[in-house]
């Protein structure tokens, strides 16, 4: 009998501990992250002129919240709600951002700055090819060794010649960073003054293959040199930039390399032969995400602590979400000859263009379930 009583007692205790463990130590399962399609809009094949405009009566005619796109053989703007402001055929050259666009010819006599609705906001007689970086507008001048910044009114804010070819560029609100063929990085302030001049060196062949500036301008990074190639990160300390991190890479890129800081400035994503690397600015550590050919790199969703990239080649593309520690969270494949990716908060806007010319834009919202 005593044996039976002990067994019963043991069973009761185990059951009690189990019940207590269930209520006290239980951890809720993590919510699953899902991409929920919100809308899908087909883009009509543009047949009109390059200079396009939103119809005057349209509710988008005065919208300040349009998103720019270039997809296949067209460009234009759409609203987060899925209305296309306009879609026009791709000209010889195009500088475009959410702030406006400039379509230009091969040898432009002048540059017309246009709003997202297509209206001309300024005309510039400045030789060169324009390009946006964020909301800032620059002009690459003849020779590829000279650049200028233009104001929204088309006025030249500053201009500068550089010692050799400009091979890389990045900017923040206050800093324009130029990477040169001779291996030097030159940072120009908003007034045109030189804030940074640095040559990473150390490689057999000097050269800047990619560069990036954090949104606050406190960090700059570059991929430089050949044999060996390396990544260098500099941080602004009082008035000067100092190297805070560098590492030799096993890459041998002989072309422009994609790199960029995340919107919160916490991470730097850069292209690698086998995917992309993620440098943590706080931890000064690196992670790697394996990926096929990258199409678009550098978008981040700070609230989700997540990076988003578009990968793939040919007719096969994938939307890839990864954690800063290098973990592939998920990827979604789709068939498209050309892809486009934009992001606003938790909303991703994915463009897909087929070889036939058919194109559409899809909004996908990140949601926990």
């Amino acid at each position, binding site marked *: 009998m005593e044996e039976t009583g002990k067994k019963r007692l043991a069973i009761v205790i185990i059951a009690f501990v189990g019940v207590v463990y269930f209520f006290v130590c239980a951890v809720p399962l993590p919510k699953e992250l899902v991409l929920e399609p919100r809308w899908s809009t087909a883009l009509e094949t543009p047949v009109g002129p390059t200079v396009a405009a939103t119809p005057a009566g349209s509710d988008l005619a005065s919208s300040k919240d349009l998103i720019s796109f270039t997809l296949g053989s067209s460009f234009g703007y759409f609203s987060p709600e899925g209305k296309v402001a306009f879609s026009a055929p791709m000209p010889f050259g195009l500088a475009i951002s959410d702030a406006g666009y400039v379509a230009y010819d091969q040898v432009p006599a002048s540059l017309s700055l246009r709003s997202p609705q297509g209206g001309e906001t300024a005309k510039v007689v400045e030789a060169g090819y324009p390009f946006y970086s964020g909301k800032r507008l620059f002009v690459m001048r*003849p*020779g590829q060794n000279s650049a200028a910044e233009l104001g929204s009114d088309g006025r030249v804010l500053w201009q500068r010649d550089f010692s050799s070819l400009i091979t890389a560029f990045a900017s923040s609100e206050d800093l324009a960073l130029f990477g040169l*063929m001779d291996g030097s990085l030159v940072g120009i302030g908003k007034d045109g003054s030189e804030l940074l001049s640095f040559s990473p060196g150390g490689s057999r062949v000097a050269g800047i293959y990619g560069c990036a500036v954090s949104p606050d301008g406190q960090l700059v990074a570059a991929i430089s040199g050949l044999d060996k190639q390396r990544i260098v990160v500099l941080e602004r300390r009082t008035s000067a930039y100092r190297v805070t991190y560098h590492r030799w890479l096993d890459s041998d890129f002989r*072309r422009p390399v994609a790199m960029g800081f995340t919107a919160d400035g916490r991470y730097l994503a850069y292209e690698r032969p086998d995917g992309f690397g993620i440098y943590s600015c706080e931890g000064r550590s690196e992670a790697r995400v394996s990926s096929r050919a990258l199409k678009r790199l550098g978008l981040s969703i700070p609230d989700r602590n997540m990076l988003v990239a578009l990968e793939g080649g040919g007719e096969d593309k994938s939307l890839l979400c990864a954690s800063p520690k290098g973990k592939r969270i998920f990827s979604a494949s789709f068939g498209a000859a050309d892809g486009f990716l934009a992001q606003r908060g938790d909303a991703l806007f994915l463009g897909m263009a087929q070889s036939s010319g058919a194109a559409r834009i899809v909004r996908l919202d990140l949601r926990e379930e």
Partner: protein
Amino acid sequence: MKVRLGARRTLVFAPYIFAASILSAMGWPLDAPVPAATFGTLNSGHFLTAVALASDGGLVHSADEGELVFVYDQKSASPSLPSTIGSYVVVEHPRGMAGVYAELARGSASSYLEKVKPGALLGTAGASGMAAGPGLLFGLFDRKAERWVNPFLLLPPLGDTTPPVIRSALLANSGSSYALGEVKSLPQGVYTVAADLSDALASSWSAGNAAPYYVRLMIDGAKVAEFTSDVAAVKDGMLRLSSQSPKTTLEYARPDGKIILASRLFARGRSIIEILVRDYAGNERRSSWTVSVE
């Protein structure tokens, strides 16, 4: 003729001829080179730091041995940073000389090469950037001296026998302008001597004048100014042409394109103004004018 031209080259281009003798000889990057714009030519208000060679679809070869270190092809490059020189490749030639082969046809830039032999195929001549015509832009950057070098100094001479052109010259001060050859007398004062000069090219990419290689101004038998389009380098954020007296575009030419030679006080009496222009092959042209200063 060849001996005479060689002697002139040795005198004027001595530093780079010396370098060329050390370097393995460079060859023309196109089979039938037709210069279309010279080093230093003003292109939309900017000095051309290369030479333009006209060609429609010609094969572009490496001028020397080297290593392909950078490829920018418009067909595959990100449009976030445009290229005004179109598709281009950079080849690291011996002695720190980086060769830039630009305006290549879209999609033609070689990306599979690393080590490059002399004459290796780099692409096809095109018009993928801001060039006014199809061809090749060929530039040489001296990494050690951090300056662009006139490629004509290191390339084999062309059989050019056409001398440069002196279209007109003038004396100008703040209020007046006197065309030499038309004006016989002018008031005493400080005048800027400027001239409409051009190298004579079989083909031209530029709406303006092709920059002559060497210009000399003599007044009353004394050398007042001379200028050579041999190198271009950046100082204080501005590109300057010439190793002798580096000039920015504003110091080099007037808005009408006339090359500014010197500013000088013309005192009472008779003055003889002589301009000598020479091209890369050593062909010369001289013009002189006599003015009376009252």
